[in-house]
């Protein structure tokens, strides 16, 4: 093996060139990490949203509850589905829900923002067991009171006792809940009838969520009314429903990969350029190594190592930059919803970036390394 010192010391001697070439990789990796961490963060919110025991019913064809319209009669019929658990009063654990995006003026910034608002009845917490009150209390029936998800409260600096204007009415925030980092933490929950009245949506629900004993029962319950011509509704296990929401980030993930590929091509060509220049300045070194007895293969390996090292330097810097974003919380659109998510620079994101870097470092250094290998020793020295 050609000494490793030969490779890395040459990079040190030409440190400006090394850094500029490595910068190409730094930028690819940083961009990739930002975009992939974003999609990973949003996917995680979806992954932790929903429970395996719950079945969510929407109007047929809807993938998002925003446009779904279920009338009272259909809701009653759904509550008769087999496998639905009952509360201690013998009533079906079925949560009728009215989901809306409501415009609200943020008092602090003066900007109009969309907020996710869910009208529910008091049994909602028994159906959505992952949602727990951590501060304050549940809203009271027939009152204009709200509980707010932890992420939403943090994002807009809303506390218990604050008064929010939704539509024409004022609503008091009486509780804060947490839901394991799921989409529910980006929502406001209030009395369904009050909200329906306020926004002229009486007599309709956007979803009916049924609680069953376990995932297997949930799947069976979901097939209730399959093929029914009387009611046009679709059921999914709640976990699947939220997983499908995450598919909307696929577009951005694919865009991230396409952008990453183009930038990586740029970085690889940069390394090719640098290595060709390095080799032309070091033909006598290469000739001597060959004369002394190092084989063509060993020369090839040495120069490939050098280009991969440049890529690794750049990639490491880029990873550090990208990692700085880890845990940063922002809000984003997920279909019609707005959710808070945290950038997630996890092992998958970092290893994708690492693989990109190393592969492009290898590919970029290949041609120059092959040319180094072909140098005819004694001729180069004369």
């Amino acid at each position: 093996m050609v000494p490793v010192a030969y490779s890395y010391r040459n990079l040190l001697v030409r440190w400006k060139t090394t850094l500029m070439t490595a910068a190409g990789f730094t930028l690819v990796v940083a961009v990739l990490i930002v975009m992939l961490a974003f999609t990973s963060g949003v996917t995680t919110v979806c992954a932790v949203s929903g429970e395996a025991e719950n079945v969510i019913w929407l109007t047929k064809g809807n993938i998002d509850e925003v446009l779904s319209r279920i009338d009272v009669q259909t809701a009653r019929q759904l509550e008769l589905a087999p496998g639905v658990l009952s509360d201690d009063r013998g009533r079906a654990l079925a949560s009728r829900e009215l989901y809306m995006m409501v415009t609200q003026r943020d008092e602090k910034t003066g900007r109009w923002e969309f907020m996710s608002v869910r009208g529910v009845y008091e049994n909602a917490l028994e159906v959505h067991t992952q949602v727990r009150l951590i501060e304050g209390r549940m809203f009271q029936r027939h009152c204009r009171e709200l509980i707010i998800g932890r992420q939403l409260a943090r994002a807009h600096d809303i506390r218990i006792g604050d008064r929010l204007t939704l539509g024409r009415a004022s609503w008091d925030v009486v509780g804060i809940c947490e839901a394991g980092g799921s989409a529910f933490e980006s929502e406001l929950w209030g009395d369904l009838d009050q909200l329906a009245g306020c926004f002229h949506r009486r007599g309709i629900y956007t979803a009916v969520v049924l609680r069953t004993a376990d995932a297997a029962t949930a799947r069976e319950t979901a097939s209730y009314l399959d093929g029914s011509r009387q009611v046009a509704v679709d059921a999914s296990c709640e976990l699947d429903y939220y997983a499908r929401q995450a598919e909307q980030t696929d577009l951005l993930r694919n865009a991230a990969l396409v952008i990453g590929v183009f930038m990586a091509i740029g970085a690889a060509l940069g390394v090719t350029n640098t290595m060709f220049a390095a080799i032309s300045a070091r033909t006598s070194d290469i000739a001597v190594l060959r004369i002394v007895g190092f084989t063509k293969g060993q020369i090839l390996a040495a120069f490939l190592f050098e280009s991969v090292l440049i890529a690794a330097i750049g990639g490491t810097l880029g990873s550090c930059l990208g990692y700085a974003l880890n845990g940063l919380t922002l809000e984003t659109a997920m279909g019609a919803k707005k959710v808070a998510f945290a950038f997630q620079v996890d092992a998958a994101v970092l290893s994708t970036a690492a693989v990109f870097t190393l592969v492009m470092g290898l590919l970029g250094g290949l041609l120059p390394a092959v040319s180094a290998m072909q140098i005819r020793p004694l001729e180069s020295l004369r």
Partner: protein
Amino acid sequence: MFKFAALIFKNLGRNKVRTTLTVLTIVALVAIYSFVCTVTDVAKTMMTAHSGDTRLLVQEKWSLPSLFPVRHVPKIAAVDGVVDWTAWNAYAGVVGEDTPIIAGLATRLDNFRAMHSGLEDLDPAILEAWEKERTGALVGQQIAQQIGRKVGQTFTVTSATHPGKNLEFKIIGILPSGIWQLTFFFRRDYYEEATGDRELVNAMWLKVRDAETGKRVAATVSEMFEHSPTQVKVETESAGIARFSGHVQTIVNIITFVANVLLVNMIIAQANSISITVRERRKEMAILKVLGFQPGMILALIVLEAMLVGSISGVAGAALAYATSELNASGALGGTVTILAQFPVPAAFIVRGFFVGAAVGFAASAIPAWNVRKVEVAEVFVRL
């Protein structure tokens, strides 16, 4: 400097490998930069208020999806200053089992072109066909591909928004590339009759004479329904879009960040190449000085060479992006990439590519060129 043009061009050919690699790098980066900028440009254009903003959007004030009574429509249309109007009703669903949900808008036929952005130049023959065909639908290119139908064919939508009201449509035209890729339009009268929905409307568009009149109309309409059970909100087209885009602000910010990073990337890549070249040509620089070239002239030679490489690459990269975009729109790539179809790269970007490339060349060569001015003749001759 033109008399030195030959020298500049010849210098490009001295190390063909390096020149080619530099050009390819910038071509690749400018190509992707073109795509990314198209997205941000469209977002910016839509979000920026136009001083001549003469289109107003009327929606229910507080919630999504917006719904307000259809009886409000004639009252709003009659407001002084309103030159023309149309209304939208959303109707969405799936075609068959496998297609994703498609979104349709029921609207007026008679003033369709005038009231829809980007469709002002629609072929009048299509509108004539639409007039004759009650179930006619104008379909976005992407939808036509998704449902596998062409002009003249029919499709039935199993509605998600109007459960049980599954409508059949006949395609009478395909909408041009752009923001309407994933939409289809059909006639209001057909919508009302087939769904029975004569009560509610999702949104209204108003055309006014000028921005000032627009403000007045907006205030009048808002006030009209101030105490009505259903309040409405009136805003200019760009304000409405800006409000929606706040919803996607994070994504827009990420894309803008990417565009800026791409520019930096191009500059660094070319700067690297130039630094290597300049280092190798130190002796020549010294010789030029001996021959009488001023330091400023030597600097200019390097900068011009870099700008030449940059601008050629910029044009090539932008042209590549444009060509790919066109091929995608025509389906020649074997399927259409949705996001490319929604944000087609305009031909004008090729000119922008030229300037971006030239600017990158200038920025990249600044420091190396400045350093080479300082080449000491004596120092280099000793090595010779």
